[in-house]
């Protein structure tokens, strides 16, 4: 009983629509938000580009009087920060958000409201940074913010706080997107699309998202610690008080190196879709490429020290990191040769995207080769921190990200607009960019070898860098003209492009099976996939899906439905009912922004008010999530019926919490790493005073932490039997309250946290436990409210399982933390190896 296609289209449109006017701010749809992410990041790219032009104008001639060091330092810091945090990462997120559901045969991502929240956080965080720039109080310690230059005594102004808080705000947005993308890839696909059948782009994004989940926490931790040091004088990085500036560098690059791959991999994923289309054959070495990119992800977490070759690390360690860094050439080579082989075994044809693929090959390979050079320790000692590195990093980032993204732009823009491009100026634009780029950066390697350090605001003729810089600046302006032409080209294509029916490139992936411009529900009905999903007969499928011949070809209960799969078998196991558009994400992000701003201006009472607002809004959001009734198996078409996600074992929220805890665990490990690092390496240990071990207090706290997980199990059993849970919830809350009280008391026992890093890290470990116990209480409050409202029932126990998982985590990390706090005083006695 399929309804008429037109009727289906009308119904789905009504259900999935985002309203006009003010309602637009309530959008949660992946197509809209993916585009918003991309457009916003393009705006930030333009701002970063203007800054780079100011840099080039300043350096064009010696003795330039255009800008002085105070402003110059802000400009290059903001250029780097904007390009890395506000352009590259959000751009790739936007592309993934826009494309993934369409490629995987889903109607949206798993947590539409989270997408919206992530977008607003990004927009607000980025705006804080840019406004600071306009007001002349932008960060000015370089994009990696080395301490102690960025610490209070040497950066007394608000500048560094802007970086720490603004970037952390954006990072938290990136983290939510990473969790969402991971879960969506693992759960929301078309039936039959096993992991081994996913288009390779989804693999790239999966690996990237997991890398973000474990890569960002070290930086988030480091930023929090540094902000705490700046605001409350707790010494984590201050060498005079047992801290160590090198700890900052380790934590930063533990994030920073993987970051480069986080930026590169999605771009490579796009290439792995684009190249096969123009080679007119599927990707060669699909499995080899997956292995290569997983290897790359692992390697990238083990070689961060190559950014620190000149800090005075023992030579043996340097040899290890040097060899490891060179090894990255292997998985990179595998991918590059897989692409070459794809072209070799296909019938390659030229089009604008292929021009950028050529640009990629040229520029990225050059950047990779200089990367191998920089991995050689002794050469690094000369080239480090010179314009050689500036050239190298732009070859890698522009070659490995900007060129592929431009290829992607020309490749997928028709998907967005429903129009094809009218070549002419596209080709000119490409050559301007390609020539301009190389004219800017090719000989900048030499500038660096002639000894020009990075981050200097001018130079003299006697230094011998005059001509090289002048040519670079001219190249920079040609490059900019190229980008301006691309912008014009896009506008023209949106206005004048030729309309097309379906699949203009004769691609084989599902994003071309939908109507263009894409309707908000993407697929009128969801396809069944029986082979690798990068060589599908897209045109025929598109027709049959539009006719409602796939799954979920109905409008039921006004629900936004998509299918959830068993992760490995690819069989549908749940109907995922997604949330409708709402302003709550916007309000929550505004409240979060209030918190960030009040921390920035040190109005701490307001930060607490903001925090309360965030919590209230989140609890409120929870009150409108899920279903209040049991539905049992629901028909999804083709004679199959599966239950809604509220009634199954492994729904998306469960996986989201698991991924969140992976991120959280990485942060905890980083904290412990920091504690041990300072104990082993930092100067001015042991501390003058340590904490008296208090076994009774420790036992009380431990009991308070361990009781709730046990109680949570009782609550689950009670709920399964249809009995009330409030008694259990109350008992768990009591345990947490005891733990929190005990922990706060313990923190007050820590001797003078501002005096020594020992005390500061001890307090941090205890505060970590307080935070988690506190969030545990919120879980319990939410459980109470939602149980009352009928969301929690014998067959719908998900909330309670989430709570159990959180309490388990809290107990485990809390007990580990308590153990550390107990043994640390003894460990400090056996240090004493320091000068």
């Amino acid at each position: 009983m399929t309804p008429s296609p037109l009727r289906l289209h009308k119904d789905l449109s009504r259900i999935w629509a985002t309203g006009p006017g003010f309602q637009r701010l309530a959008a949660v749809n992946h197509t809209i938000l993916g585009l918003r992410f991309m457009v916003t990041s393009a705006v930030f790219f333009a701002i970063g580009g203007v800054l780079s032009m100011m840099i080039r104008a300043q350096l064009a001639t010696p003795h330039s009087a255009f800008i002085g060091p105070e402003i110059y330092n802000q400009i290059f810091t903001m250029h780097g920060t904007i390009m890395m945090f506000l352009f590259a990462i959000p751009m790739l997120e936007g592309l993934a958000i826009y494309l993934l559901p369409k490629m995987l045969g889903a109607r949206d991502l798993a947590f539409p409201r989270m997408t919206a929240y992530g977008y607003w956080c990004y927009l607000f965080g980025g705006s804080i940074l840019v406004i600071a720039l306009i007001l002349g109080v932008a960060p000015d310690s370089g994009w990696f913010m080395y301490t102690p230059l960025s610490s209070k005594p040497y950066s007394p102004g608000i500048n560094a706080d802007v970086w720490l808080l603004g970037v952390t705000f954006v990072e938290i947005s990136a983290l939510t997107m990473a969790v969402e993308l991971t879960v969506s890839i693992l759960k929301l696909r078309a039936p039959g699309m096993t992991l081994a059948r996913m288009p390779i782009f989804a693999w790239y994004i999966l690996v990237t998202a997991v890398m973000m989940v474990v890569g960002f926490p070290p930086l988030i931790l480091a930023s929090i610690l540094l902000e705490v040091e700046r605001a409350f004088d707790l010494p984590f990085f201050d060498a005079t008080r047992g801290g160590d500036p090198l700890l900052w560098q380790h934590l930063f690059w533990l994030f920073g190196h993987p970051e480069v791959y986080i930026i590169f991999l999605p771009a490579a994923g796009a290439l792995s879709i684009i190249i096969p289309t123009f080679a007119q054959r599927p990707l060669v070495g699909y499995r080899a490429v997956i292995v290569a990119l997983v290897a790359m992800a692992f390697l990238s977490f083990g070689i961060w020290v190559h950014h620190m070759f000149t800090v005075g690390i023992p030579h043996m360690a340097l040899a290890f990191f040097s060899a490891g860094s060179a090894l990255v050439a292997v998985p990179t080579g595998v991918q590059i040769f897989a692409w070459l082989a794809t072209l070799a075994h296909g019938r390659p044809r030229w089009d604008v995207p292929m021009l950028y693929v050529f640009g990629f090959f040229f520029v990225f390979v050059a950047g990779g080769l200089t990367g191998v050079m920089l991995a050689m320790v002794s050469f690094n000692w000369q080239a480090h921190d010179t314009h050689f590195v500036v050239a190298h990093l732009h070859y890698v980032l522009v070659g490995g990200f900007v060129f592929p993204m431009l290829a992607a732009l020309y490749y997928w823009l028709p998907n967005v607009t429903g129009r094809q491009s009218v070549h002419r100026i596209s080709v000119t634009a490409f050559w301007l960019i390609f020539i301009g780029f190389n004219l800017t950066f090719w000989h900048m390697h030499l500038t660096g070898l002639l000894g020009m350090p990075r981050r200097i605001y001018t130079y003299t003729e006697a230094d011998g860098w005059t001509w090289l810089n002048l040519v670079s600046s001219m190249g920079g302006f040609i490059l900019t003209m190229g980008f301006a032409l691309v912008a014009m080209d896009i506008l023209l294509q949106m206005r004048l492009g030729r309309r097309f029916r379906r699949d203009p490139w004769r691609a084989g992936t599902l994003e071309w099976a939908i109507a263009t411009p894409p309707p908000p529900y993407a697929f009128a009905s969801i396809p069944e996939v029986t082979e690798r999903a990068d060589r599908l007969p897209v045109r025929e499928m598109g027709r049959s899906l539009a006719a409602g011949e796939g799954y979920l070809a109905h409008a039921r209960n006004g629900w936004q439905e998509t299918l959830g799969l068993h992760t490995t078998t690819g069989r549908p196991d749940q109907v995922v009912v997604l949330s409708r558009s709402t302003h709550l994400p916007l309000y929550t992000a505004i409240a979060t922004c209030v918190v960030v701003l009040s921390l920035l201006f040190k109005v701490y009472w307001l930060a607490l008010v903001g925090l309360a607002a965030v919590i209230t809004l989140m609890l409120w959001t929870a009150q409108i999530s899920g279903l209040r009734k049991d539905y049992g198996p629901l028909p999804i078409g083709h004679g199959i019926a599966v239950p809604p996600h509220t009634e199954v074992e492994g729904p998306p929220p469960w996986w989201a919490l698991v991924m969140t805890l992976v991120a959280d665990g990485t942060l905890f490990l980083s904290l412990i790493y920091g504690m041990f690092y300072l104990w082993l390496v930092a100067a001015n240990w042991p501390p003058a005073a340590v904490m008296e071990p208090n076994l009774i207090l420790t036992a009380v706290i431990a009991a308070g932490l361990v009781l709730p997980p046990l109680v949570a199990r009782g609550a689950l059993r009670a709920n399964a039997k249809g009995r009330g849970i409030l008694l259990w919830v109350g008992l768990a809350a009591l345990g947490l309250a005891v733990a929190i009280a005990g922990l706060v008391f313990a923190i007050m026992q820590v001797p003078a946290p501002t005096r020594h890093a020992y005390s500061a890290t001890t307090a941090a470990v205890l505060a970590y436990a307080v935070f988690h116990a506190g969030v545990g209480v919120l879980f319990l409050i939410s459980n109470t409210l939602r149980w009352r409202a009928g969301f929690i029932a014998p067959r719908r126990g998900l909330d309670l399982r989430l709570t159990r998982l959180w309490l388990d985590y809290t107990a485990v990390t809390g007990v580990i933390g308590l153990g550390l706090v107990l043994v640390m005083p003894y460990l400090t006695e056996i240090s004493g190896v320091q000068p």
Partner: protein
Amino acid sequence: MGRWLAVGAVVLVAGCDGPFSTLEPRGPAASSIANLWWGMLAGALILMALVLALFAFVMLAPKQASRIAPRHWIIWGGLGLPALVLPPLVGWSLVAGERLLPHPGADVAVVEVESFQFGWTFRYPEYGGIERDILHLPVGQPVDIHITTRDVIHAFWIPQLGGKLDAIPGHVNVLRLQADETGVYAGQCAEFCGTGHLPMRFETHVHAPEDLPAALGITAAADDQEEDQQP
């Protein structure tokens, strides 16, 4: 042809000129690194030409290119090529790097460098802790530079003599340098350290060993002078 080559060579050599040039080495460390660079440059250009040639090959003549099986592309390109290039390169670099380390030796002079926002002081323990703001070194003798900082991170760098090393609060880093010729060499701070990062330049005067005491202001009557030197 020959003339063009000559002109090219002149341009190239002139292009490597400059007070901060790492390509005009005047000491064993800088020379070893410059050699490594030229070697790597040659290798990199060959590899780059190879990849671009392959790209042209597959785009223009896919028929011929498809004679190489897909698996072979990946194995030879992704595994074979790195296996051929990387071990010798890493080996070379490690051996060369090892030689640059401050191994203990009889004939090693010591200078203590303290950096600060924004400048340098150089102390000579051998000469009773004299302090100067120009670095004086003996020619032909290995010197261990002990690098520290009074405030933020800086980096000590004399490009013509060798690589740079950071000055990090709470740490002492030791850099081994040696100058092969007397003369004046330019040095600078290489780690961004604030608004005075650019002016943090210094001069290095390399003297014949017998001239060094005089350069440090130590005359025959050095003993009475030493008393008013602050330790």
